[in-house]
């Protein structure tokens, strides 16, 4: 990475240098810097190895859309479009088909079974799987598990990745990528909501998260 990139969380949160929340974020400068380094390590690695940039961006688009975070979906959609335009529509359509609500899932712990809940357990249909190819089919299936029902993860889910050609190193990187995005999107979203609640809109009538986000995103 020779070119310095903008702070992605600020970008997704709609925070500009000089904003009040930029100063608050400075109080945790090491966290800010290393959230950015996590982005670089997982989404812009100098040596992607056998986990290609196209696969990384496809996962990021899928995760962003499952979270319903429009700005993040657009941001990662641009990265995927530049790297592998032929994958964009199939990944976006897959995310639409895979919509669910989490966290849910069955507990394995005997005294927690009463708290087990059900939801959409998604895997790509045959046509989508063919368009994605074996590796991405397995990756997006696993990503859906991690996003919505991580408590149902089992060794068998990792075996499915191995069977689709994922190495142990790449499974760790894929897991880090999905888990990191689960953090990054929440920090950016939370800051966005906080900024909206602190601005002029905060004195108006109670607004939902979506309209708060829309109000802030005009400045992006």
């Amino acid at each position, binding site marked *: 990475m020779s070119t310095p990139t903008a702070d992605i969380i600020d970008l997704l949160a709609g925070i500009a240098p000089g904003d009040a929340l930029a100063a608050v974020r400075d*109080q945790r400068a090491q*966290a800010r810097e290393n959230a950015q380094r996590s982005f670089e390590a997982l989404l812009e690695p100098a040596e992607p190895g056998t986990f290609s940039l196209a696969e990384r961006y496809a996962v990021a688009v899928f995760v962003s859309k499952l979270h319903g975070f429009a700005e993040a979906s657009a941001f990662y959609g641009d990265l995927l479009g530049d790297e592998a335009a032929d994958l964009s529509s199939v990944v976006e359509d897959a995310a639409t088909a895979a919509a*669910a609500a989490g966290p849910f899932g069955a507990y394995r712990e005997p005294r927690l079974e009463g708290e087990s809940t059900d939801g959409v357990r998604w895997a790509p249909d045959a046509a989508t799987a063919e368009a994605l190819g074996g590796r991405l089919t397995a990756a997006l299936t696993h990503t859906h598990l991690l996003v919505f029902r991580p408590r149902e993860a089992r060794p068998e*889910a990792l075996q499915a990745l191995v069977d689709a050609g994922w190495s142990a190193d790449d499974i760790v990187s894929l897991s880090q990528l999905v888990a990191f995005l*689960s953090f990054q999107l*929440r920090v950016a979203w939370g800051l966005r909501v906080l900024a*909206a609640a602190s601005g002029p809109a905060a004195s108006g009538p109670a607004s939902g998260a979506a309209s*708060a986000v829309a109000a802030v995103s005009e400045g992006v």
Partner: protein
Amino acid sequence: MTEIVTEYPELARPEAFTQEGLGWVPWLLPVAEDELTDAQRDALIEPARAKMPYFRLLARDPDALRARTLTDLDIFFNVSGGIGRAERELAAAATSRHNGCVFCASVHAAAATRESGRQADVQRLLDEGVEADLGDETWNAVVAASVALADTPLDFGPDDIVGLRGAGLDDAEIVDVIGGAAFFNWANRLMLSLGEPEVPARRASAR
């Protein structure tokens, strides 16, 4: 050819959420301690972590591990300004309780107890769940906001900010709650999907 994925048919598994210490076993082979490269050792940040299979497994992607760990340490242990350590640990425990990560919840519930002295309140969070009344407005607001932030699709909204402000939190404190809760959406997914918790042999034999 060696199997890549390890299963543990005979493992002594926890039966519910607990504040007692748990072990954790990996489903993928960690890097062997004596085979860690300099870059992987550096990524552990704390040398003692070379003993822990979780961190040696994450060392398979050292750049990601290093950045993850430095993010974690600043959010939870940088005490210049912001909210107290107990409330950060509470946000971690509540997120873990909601996502269903028994291992993470045990570590951070115990830490919340250690930092606050409120063992019974923390235990109520584990036993009754995230709706439990923890006895004061700040703790209830931190738990409610952490739970809201864990939901997918994202649904954390202005009402959650109102709740935190109503409990007296300023923006720096709210940003710490968001950071701590968001971070455990990262940690829970790694801990839940790359291995599983185990009751230490000493306690397992006593039950």
